[in-house]
């Protein structure tokens, strides 16, 4: 069970950092690095994974809503319909919100640092450097 908790926690921390919550960053950043070292968790979803998570969320919610409505209607219990739907919302949340590995099957390929050094960034020639010399007379 602890690995489930660590996935949920890592994605929550990931979300904190992305949302620029500085207090969150300060308090929990140490825990995040501990988690990284210990478990090598992927801390983000890739683009394909995000699309998949969104699709799963929408389809699951609609299918469970239809199922809950039909069940409630034929058993004549409005409260049963709401309880089934509430449970399905929590289940959908557990499946689509944390950064499960399924959502990281197409990770982004960042350029290798040694490769980047072979193609240095062009230097900006600023006009202010040449301006200073004439005035210093």
């Amino acid at each position, binding site marked *: 069970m602890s690995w489930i908790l660590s996935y949920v926690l890592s994605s*929550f921390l990931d*979300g904190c950092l992305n949302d620029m919550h500085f207090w969150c960053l300060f308090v929990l950043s140490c825990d995040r690095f501990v988690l990284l070292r210990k478990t090598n968790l992927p801390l983000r979803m890739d683009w394909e994974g995000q*699309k998949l998570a969104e699709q799963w969320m929408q389809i699951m*919610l609609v299918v469970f809503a239809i199922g809950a409505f039909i069940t*409630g209607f034929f058993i004549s219990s409005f409260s049963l319909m709401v309880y089934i739907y509430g449970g399905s919302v929590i289940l959908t*949340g557990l499946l*689509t919100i944390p950064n499960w590995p399924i959502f990281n099957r197409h990770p982004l390929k960042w350029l290798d640092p040694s490769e980047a050094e072979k193609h240095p960034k062009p230097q900006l020639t600023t006009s202010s450097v040449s301006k200073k010399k004439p005035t210093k007379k």
Partner: protein
Amino acid sequence: MHSFGYRANALLTFAITILAVMCAFASLSDNFNSPSPTSQVQVLNINWFRNKPDGDDEVSMTMNISADLQSLFTWNTKQVFVFLAAEYKTRKNSLNQVSLWDGIIPAKEHAKFYIHTTNKYRFVDQGSNLRERDFNMTLHWHVMPKTGKMFADKIVMTGYRLPEAYR
């Protein structure tokens, strides 16, 4: 769908929108219910019938009210509010409605009832028009839903008459 908070927000918003749609469908499903209620009112006794000092007539009566409103209940019904009104016509007003008794029925099991009671609310006229007056006893009900539209209807029972002299 980049971060945890973003995904959680999207999930909750979509979930609540779908819940609103489900409630709308639940309310629409009430239209498929075709109820067949029955009721009967018997006036057993006129306890007193007088002209009040301020000029208005007043009647007190004992009645047996019986009704079967079980077919009004659906899966989306919270309670049924029912009241009995005496309706009559005078020279001044084409319709007078005076509520004599009301009650709340919280569940289908209590919807078939028989009560023996005096009028809960006073039967007072605007003026002194009640002697020898023909009136209808109308049982009105409001079906209050858990979500959505409230339905209201009534049964009119005719053939009641007040005495010709004060007692």
